């Protein structure tokens, strides 16, 4: 188990750094359309031509003939590294126009093909990752915040407060959450700016999922409350707030961390699902969910397999976070005993 930890941390860091530096890694802007190149297959990167091996890889410009794409073999267009292109911002503060790689016009480099508007799927996948991962992480934070507050109040004050709060939690836990999610979304306005929708989505997803962390936190608080150090501190005249801050809340840290690792992939999937149904982040802003929604048409699903890429990204994200949760669970358990 221990040997795998650095690998896992590396994978986790790579995933998030790729999303953060999407602008740098992606050759194009996510909204840049090439209407003459719809559903172009992934561009092939060549090293070898008639004159032999080249150190600098190159691509051919795609041409559309009859009903399929072919490579225009007359001109070789080398791939340039670290070139200037469209401007982008990193985390909304750093402006730049430096890109990791690009090719000269008229060729395009579509590492994962293009979608129906001729937008680069690879660039959209990276930018979509920003939206999807941010939605998952922020909604998780919201859930944990609400869950911690409710769980602490419930566990610390007990009696009827505890019973009513945990009763509500049970209600939320036993709901078919997806129906509920859709229903809540149904009553909120459909046509909003992408930024508003994004915040709304985080709010809805995060607020529905508070019950599980609340129950777990309550359990920890309940057992921490009756410990000797707490009773002693109370005897010395410590206030409730001091007890919670100094003695009780630190105990919940492990549970919260493990819960976070479990909730993030679920919420990323929830965002993807809602966006897939057209209830989440809307075009032209890419998210993994709304990128997948074109696959609802069977002909797209059959013919353009590269558009499944966001599904792959979802799987990778989920697996990484589940492994992390597993690791945290076993680590923190052995730590506390």
């Amino acid at each position, binding site marked *: 188990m221990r040997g795998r930890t650095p690998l896992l941390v590396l994978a986790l860091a790579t995933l998030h750094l790729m999303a953060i530096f999407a602008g740098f890694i992606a050759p194009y802007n996510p909204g840049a359309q090439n209407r003459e190149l719809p559903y172009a297959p992934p561009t092939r990167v060549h090293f070898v031509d008639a004159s032999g091996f080249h150190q600098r890889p190159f691509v051919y410009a795609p041409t559309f003939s009859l009903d399929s794409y072919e490579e225009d073999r007359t001109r070789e267009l080398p791939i340039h590294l670290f070139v200037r292109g469209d401007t982008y911002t990193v985390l909304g503060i750093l402006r730049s126009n430096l890109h990791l790689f690009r090719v000269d016009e008229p060729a395009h480099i579509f590492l994962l093909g293009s979608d129906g508007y001729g937008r680069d799927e690879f660039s959209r996948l990276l930018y979509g990752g920003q939206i999807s991962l941010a939605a998952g992480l922020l909604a998780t934070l919201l859930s944990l915040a609400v869950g911690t507050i409710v769980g602490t109040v419930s566990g610390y004050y007990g009696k009827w407060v505890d019973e009513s709060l945990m009763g509500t939690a049970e209600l939320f836990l036993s709901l078919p959450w997806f129906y509920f999610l859709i*229903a809540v979304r149904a009553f909120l306005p459909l046509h909003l700016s992408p930024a508003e929708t994004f915040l709304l989505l985080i709010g809805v997803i995060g607020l529905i999922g508070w019950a599980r962390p609340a129950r777990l936190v309550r359990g920890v608080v309940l057992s921490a409350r009756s410990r000797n150090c707490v009773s002693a501190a109370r005897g010395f005249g410590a206030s409730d707030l001091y007890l919670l801050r100094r003695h009780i809340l630190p105990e919940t840290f492990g549970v919260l961390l493990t819960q976070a690792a479990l909730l993030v992939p679920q919420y990323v999937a929830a965002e993807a*699902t809602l966006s897939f149904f057209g209830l989440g982040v809307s075009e032209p802003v890419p998210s993994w969910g709304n990128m997948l929604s074109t696959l609802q048409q069977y002909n797209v*699903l059959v013919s353009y397999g590269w558009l499944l890429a966001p599904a792959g990204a979802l799987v990778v994200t989920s697996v990484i976070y589940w492994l992390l949760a597993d690791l945290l669970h076993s680590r923190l358990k052995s730590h506390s005993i």
Partner: protein
Amino acid sequence: MKYLGRRLLRAALLLIGVSALCFLFTEMAPGSFFDEMRLNPQISPETISALRTQYGLDRPLPVRYARWMKSLVRGDLGYSIAYNIPVVSLLWVRAKNTLLLTGTALLLTWLIAVPLGVLTAASRGRLLDKAVAVGSSLLISIPEIVIAIALLALAVRTRIVPVGGMRSLGFEELSKWGQFQDVAGRMLLSTLVLVLASVAVVERHVRASVLEVLEAPYIHAARGLGISRMRLLFRHVLPVAANPAISLFGFSVAGLLSGSLLVEVVTGWPGLGPLILEATLARDLYLVIGGVMFSAVFMVVGNFVADLLLLSSDPRIRTGELDAG
């Protein structure tokens, strides 16, 4: 009996809670079904306000909720604004399909997961256990939507199983057996997605609780008496280990209902899912609330069945010694 009474009370409270939440959200929602009508110059404002009165939307929230509850007692969930027919008749047709799908998936999930859980627990650390553990971790971590899309892509590409809808053309002319085959074939894909998405969780729970029981002294004693392995596992261990697993049954019904909504939309199965999604996009208020209530009722029934099973399987509950939370 006291136990069952408490459970029934809890179920009723849950349904009231769900409906109250739904109404609360409708109140908080800006915008309504009539917003688009307002933009239509052919419809006068008077017509719209008359419609609002007709559907009771001009009343304050508590009045609306009380009226809805009153009609609920008569088995009436209000009118769909978009289809202009009673919500119940609209939902019932679709609900039967959803029930067929989730019921089959539930049965298959448990038929696969329980034996698998028992066997993996019994062969702990050996090849079977390890292989199943890897598979179930993978299944648990892959989002349901990805499973659905991946299987759909596979089905559409290879054309092994039919997709979309519930019946083929010319369904009426088929024999009873042919009709059954047709529906079963079209249900296969959706069922498979649901089973794959839920089987791993159940298997893990069964495995964990069986492992716990296997440590018990009476099992060592029984083994010492020379009772055969299979009889030991399924006759002596499983009934005792069933308690936590049965509690999971209720949750797994909720999970399957959630999952079926998603799967139905993706594979085009004519259940509650596509209807509710449409209603959501059209802001068809009572239809959405009705759909959520339907699924909540199914879930409550599922939980109640789990309680009954617990009651019959665990004598400690019958004597009131143990209250399964």
